[in-house]
């Protein structure tokens, strides 16, 4: 049997507060949005709890009010030079993502340490995110660890099932289809409930329904999931 090829268009998923599901993180989100609230905030959360989304939403949010903001994703930048930290204290807000990647990178650790010092002097707001709290990241530079704890350290709580259900439905809507409560709950009960895994399943279902011209019913979902496991 031939499967119909789908047009390979990658959808642009935007990272804004409009599509950020706050869950139990209302306080943290409010605090982050309030520019004068804290000059340094450290946010940590497990993989796929929405740190990247949150930081980028913040960039977009501040930039729209003409607050000069930068977003430094270390998973991308770590392959280049710590020079990217230079002059960032001239920003109003600087958001640094994936700080755990600085493990074993002495030059990067020193560069971040220097940036934190300069940011303090310049009154620049630093928002730092990682998948672990400061004391758990294995950094050689103790001076950096203590500076990461200077401001409040917040844990970004993972979404509960209701939140995940909401996130799935929202993502489906972005892709132009409706996800019924039944199917969403079915996914939550039968798949690994990590948000990224759930999203991957949803994308696979989307592709399958387009190829096979089917609506997303539980039997159809079940058959797609069974196929994937095979």
């Amino acid at each position, binding site marked *: 049997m031939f499967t119909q090829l789908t047009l390979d268009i990658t959808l642009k*998923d935007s990272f804004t507060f409009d599509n950020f599901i706050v869950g139990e993180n209302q*306080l943290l989100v409010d605090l982050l949005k309030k520019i004068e609230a804290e000059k340094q905030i450290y946010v940590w959360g497990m993989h796929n709890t929405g740190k990247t989304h949150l930081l980028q939403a913040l960039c977009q949010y501040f930039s729209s009010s003409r607050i000069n903001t930068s*977003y430094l*994703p270390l998973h991308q930048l770590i392959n280049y030079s710590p020079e990217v930290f230079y002059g960032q204290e001239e920003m109003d807000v600087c958001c640094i993502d994936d700080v755990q990647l600085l493990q074993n990178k002495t030059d990067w650790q020193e560069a971040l340490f220097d940036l934190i010092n300069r940011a303090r002097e310049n*009154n620049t707001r630093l928002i730092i995110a990682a998948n672990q709290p400061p004391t758990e990241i294995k950094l050689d530079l103790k001076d950096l660890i203590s500076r990461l*704890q200077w401001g409040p350290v917040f844990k970004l709580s993972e979404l509960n099932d209701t939140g995940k259900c909401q996130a799935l439905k929202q993502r489906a809507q972005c892709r132009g289809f409706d996800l019924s409560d039944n199917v969403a709950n079915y996914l939550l009960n039968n798949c690994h409930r990590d948000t990224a895994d759930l999203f991957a399943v949803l994308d696979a279902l989307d592709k399958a329904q387009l190829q096979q011209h089917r609506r997303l019913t539980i039997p159809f979902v079940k058959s797609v999931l069974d196929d994937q496991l095979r």
Partner: protein
Amino acid sequence: MSSALWDQCLQRLEQELSDQQLNTWIRPLQTEESNNQLFLFAPNSFVMDWVKQHFLQQIITICQQITSDQNISISLDIGSKNPKPQFKPTNTPSQPIASPAPKQPSMVTKPSNVKIEHHLNIGFTFDNFIEGKSNQLAKAASLQVVENPAGSYNPLFLYGGVGLGKTHLMHAVGNQILQNNPQARIVYLHSERFVTHMIKALQHNTMDEFKQFYRSLDVLLIDDIQFFAGKERSQEEFFHTFNALLEGGRQIILTCDRYPKEIDGLEERLKSRFGWGLPVCIEPPELETRVAILQKKAEEFDIVLPNEVAFFIAKRIRSNIRELEGSLRRVMATANFTGKPITLEFAKDTLRDLIALHDRLITIENIQKTVAEYYKIRISDLHSNSRSRSITRPRQVAMALSKELTNHSLPEIGNAFGGRDHTTILHGCRKITELRESDSKIDEDYTNLLRILSN
């Protein structure tokens, strides 16, 4: 002021680029617009090169389309449109980092012989330095230096672990000397800045000015000199500056994370000179001092911190004062936003994840072990087929906790409970939800276990 042209250009770029590209490379650019010219400023050469390589052509094209002008000039440089002022408790104006004149943005940090920026933080004084056994000697020595600059304690070498107050004390000396003598030429800087300053002087062939500047000071405060380790040229230059100042009867204060002799990668002659004056150690503060520090900070933030809360935080956070301050800030921020008073319960709840970071370690096995211990049954009972009430309830509680606290799918949870079907797990979870409404004992057990597991 942002420019209208850039705003329009940005709107187009928002359609064409991913959010990450926008947030990392485009939105941080500062802009200025005048007479058919758009000036873009990047924070550093890395960002500038990246933008040049990946986005500049696109920006030019868009701007040409918007203005219908092929000759519009767009320039990209390093710098900042309005350099942010450094903290300036002084009457001297701060040095701009980049020229505000947009035509030739450049990095200029030229030392001036007339007015100097001392970079002292006025927030660090002796008044708000909390004295305890751990730092008594260091404080006394610092006060001596204020009384008698360039006297017997020269250089004053403050050393100790991170976040214990070395920098605070150093600034306090600087501020006090300045208060006693407003004409005093004082500079505080981090060792990294000294290195950067020297490299720039070498690049721009202005070493003479550099030397002149540092040797003209009355008091030089250098923080974290351990970062000189391995930087030979900087050490060489610092050695000469150091000697010149000492010979000229000027005061030097240095901080370091260890005793001079223990700094690897530092020339012997520097190590020995650092030990000439008074090396004095700051130890981690004891409990009472930590409580006093918290109370002082609370006072600065204008909040009332009940003693039991201060003790609660101080007992748990021992390592350094920055973390102590971070924790207090978190409690305050939460209280501010929720409008709740700061009580012991409130602080415990707010700092729960900070103080006990164990919830990362929650696994189904862990849950089963904890539940078995709590109900005094065996772990194997949880896996068994036993239908006795004394086993089934704990088993269902463990199932519900596994669903709530981990990301495993119901079939995975089923497997971990002796190969049960996922519908059994679902039934178990629903049963517990129901029972928690109707049976306060079950609800209490569940809440207790939740607390044990996440503490």
